[in-house]
């Protein structure tokens, strides 16, 4: 049991370090067991070092860096063991445009083994999607689905001017 956890943890950690470096374009990151001698109960610590910075407390990271750290953790789990599907609600809202693109590249790469259901307002993420599902409410207070065509100008989708079902 302990051995299995240790092996799994080491594999996830290796993915985490690799994915962090790819997302941040450098730096380093590592997961550690807080009590390495009691593998079956120990908590997990996260240490990250964005490029050029010292190893620091998670609280000092910027809004976007925190989102990228969680994205790194998510994809390291999926790399170790693909989940059948994954629902992600606006994890890209704090990202700058180029990190939205990097995130969407990871989505495309990992969508070969897992299905993704992603709520988003960002054009870069919409562009990576295989299909768009529109939700609207208008003044009725009741949600309805509408079919959506992605136009070059992502705004079209958002304005609720979506083409009726």
């Amino acid at each position, binding site marked *: 049991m302990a051995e299995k956890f240790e092996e799994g943890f080491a594999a996830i950690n290796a993915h985490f370090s690799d994915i962090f470096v790819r997302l941040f374009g450098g730096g380093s990151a590592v997961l550690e067991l807080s009590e390495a001698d009691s593998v079956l109960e120990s908590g997990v610590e996260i240490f990250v070092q964005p490029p050029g910075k010292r190893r620091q407390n998670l609280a000092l990271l910027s809004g976007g860096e925190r989102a990228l750290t969680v994205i790194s953790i998510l994809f390291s789990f999926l790399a170790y063991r693909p989940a059948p599907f994954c629902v992600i*609600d606006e*994890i890209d809202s704090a990202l700058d445009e180029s990190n939205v693109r990097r995130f969407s590249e990871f989505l495309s790469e990992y969508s070969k083994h897992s299905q993704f*259901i992603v709520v988003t307002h960002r054009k870069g*993420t919409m562009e990576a999607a*295989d299909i768009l599902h529109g*939700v*609207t*409410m208008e003044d*009725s207070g009741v949600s309805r689905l509408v079919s959506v065509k992605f136009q070059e100008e992502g705004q079209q989708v958002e304005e609720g001017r*979506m083409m009726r079902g």
Partner: protein
Amino acid sequence: MLLKKFEVFGFKSFADKTELEFSPGINAIVGPNGSGKSNISDAIRWALGEQSIRTLRGAKMEDVIFAGTTHRKPLGVAEVSLTFDNYDALLPLDFGEVTVTRRVFRSGESEYLINKSQCRLKDLHELLAGTGLGRESMAVIGQNKIDEILNSKPEERRLLFEEVI
């Protein structure tokens, strides 16, 4: 074990019976603020057996039942069904398709069904065990949850790892 279909009736802002077919790959859910996108991700988490109403942004369990609008009366029951493609037999059932359903009545009574036959919550948990869709998994990452994931205690973080190892 693709999520093929999502059906909802009376859950939060979905007062009318609504059906959504998901595709393999990346599905983006888009639409104006307040239209009901996060209610879909809440519905999926709820149908998978989520017991904490706070995680679903409510105060009491009835908060998930359509509460009415200026033009419509409140409903008495909320129901969500998820249909999975089980050709890879990841779910220990002898069906090519498996549908899990959850219902709650204003009286507080809950019902769980697997392929339309009633079961207990425990049966649902057993069905999903080992698929990576357990409650502690990262299978559903709600809106604004980045802080909760990064600020969690090391022992709580360990639960994420136990889901996949």
